[in-house]
């Protein structure tokens, strides 16, 4: 039983978050960096949703009956976090497209070298 208890939303969230961090640390592709940011955000969102929520929690909507509710605050916060994620991804991607048309590369290191070369001009 202990193994099953260990696999809960909270621990999964941490693991997902660090998968994103790995992508940011190890991958040199700019698009993959943007995807990694999305993964990290997903981990954080999952963590938020796991707070104050048991296996038998119901959505926090009153309908006259009494039941165990999930915490409504994280759910409201998560909507905001999702919109932030969408906007950030959109802006990062459009910046990447603009950068790709200048540099012609998707690699961070090559882009960095391009930038230094242009500085010397």
């Amino acid at each position, binding site marked *: 039983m202990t193994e099953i208890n260990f696999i809960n939303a909270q621990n999964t969230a941490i693991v997902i978050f660090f998968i994103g961090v790995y992508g940011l640390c190890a991958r040199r592709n700019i698009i993959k*960096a943007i995807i990694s940011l999305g993964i*990290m955000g997903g981990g954080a969102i999952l963590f*938020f949703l796991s707070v104050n929520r048991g296996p038998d929690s119901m959505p926090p909507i009153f309908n006259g009956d009494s039941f165990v509710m999930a915490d409504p605050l994280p759910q409201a*916060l998560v909507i*905001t976090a999702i919109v932030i994620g969408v906007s950030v991804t959109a*802006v990062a991607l459009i910046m990447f497209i*603009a950068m790709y048309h200048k*540099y012609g590369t998707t690699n961070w290191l090559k882009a*960095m070298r391009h930038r230094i070369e242009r500085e010397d001009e």
Partner: protein
Amino acid sequence: MILYAFIFIPIITGTLIYLIPWKGIVKVAFGLQMGLMALSIYNFVYIRLNGPIEVVIGNFAKIAGISLRCDTLSATLLMLTAFIFLMCFLFGLMDKFMNNLFVFFFLTLQALTMVIFLSGDLFNIYVVTEVSTIIVAVLIMFKKDSRSLYDGMLYLITNIAAMTFFLLGLGFMYKIFGSLDISIIGAKMFDIENARVLAMPFAFLMTGIGLKCAFLPLFSWLPKAHATPSAPSIVSVILSGLYVKCGIYLFIRVREMFLPALEMDDIFLVIGILTGIIGFILAMSQKDIKMILAYHTISQLGIVLIGITAGGEYAYYGGVLHLFNHAVFKSLLFLSAGIIISKYGTRDITKIRGVFRRMPYVSGMTIAAMLGITGAPLFNGSISKYFIQSGVKGGIIEYAMILINLGTIISFIKFSQMFFGKGLAERIHIDFGKKAAVTTMGLMCLLMGMGGTLVISGIINYRVSIDILEYIKKALVYFVSLGAGYLTYNKYLKKTKFIKEGYELELSINGIAISMMAFFIFIAAAAYVIL
């Protein structure tokens, strides 16, 4: 009520300016800035007389809603925000890039900065910081030239990653405390039984904030973002003079929040000293004017951090005062650097010569700012550095402060080379607005130095006095450092490869992410050991 005005008037005006397709409307923004300045002074006086105010938005219970809190520190920061933005608009009103879109972004950024200084809710701070990060990235890339694209991209990705760390830390905080309000969490901090549970959230939050304030391993994005060649100089002013203070302000608030249960001042003190030293060493080796100034921002932030964490009231208020002083003189330096760059057409410090003869007025003001940043007697930097040093009297920290100051002096001796030498003799005409902005800032440098004690007792309800004898001793140390710096630079350093050819610590995104991880695990381990 007045707090809402600071937040919503700039946003709504900015959006309207964006919608109206007439370029002249931009002038309205300048009038708005005057109004905000007056309002912020009124607000400051009100807060100073009546004590801090706290409003919960929509008149709900504090636990359920979002609260805005304004004490003297945030009121002063609001005043600083209004002042720096006013100067920026005065400086750049006639420039070509000042179109409606730019003003929209700029005014929105001002409102968001003010929210960060006012908000009492951690999640609200997260949202606002994300919005402002996007705006800053767009402003960095505003001219869309090829170098700034890389800088803006790097800025965006690193800062968003840091804020995701912050978000996860918030999740932990909410799980433990059941609330997101800073003051409620601060009050509950006393009741915590097993303080080790705080190690993780603290490390996550501090990694996010540490990158925002460019602590030691995490500063690699800052010089590029603050000194992008093509960004308008007023953007550099806002970033280096003001926006980076949001990070420090968050640091102050979060540190205060955790203080009852978790105190890690010693570790941050060491980080501050190292940040200060690394900052000036890298600044010395730069050739680009803006780069030099950007690296000095890192160094000065280290000094602020030393002041905040060194312990003792004097050092703390010295650190806070240095925050304001740094905003004034660094903004002035960036403004005059902008003028020099646009008139000379180059940013290379070895190629610019004879500035003093061509624009004596601007040069004079720049020298005032340089005296301020190096801590010359009677100028503003000296007062705050005096307080920080008197708080940590004796011991290794004082020597570290003197060392950082010496390094700053050496670096600015290199910087001042451009004033002298033979260049073309004719004067260069400078707009009235630019002159007015630079003059006001220069006078502020001198005034905040002359009335340093008045400023500090005005800002915080705390009487301080300067020991004249001690101050003269500090002045002597300054002149000795000046001489030593001059000699070292001309005798030894000038010919070294390090100074001549320049050296750049370039970390790619992977490097920054790895150092972020290292910082995170270091803070977590340290917190775990201390508790």
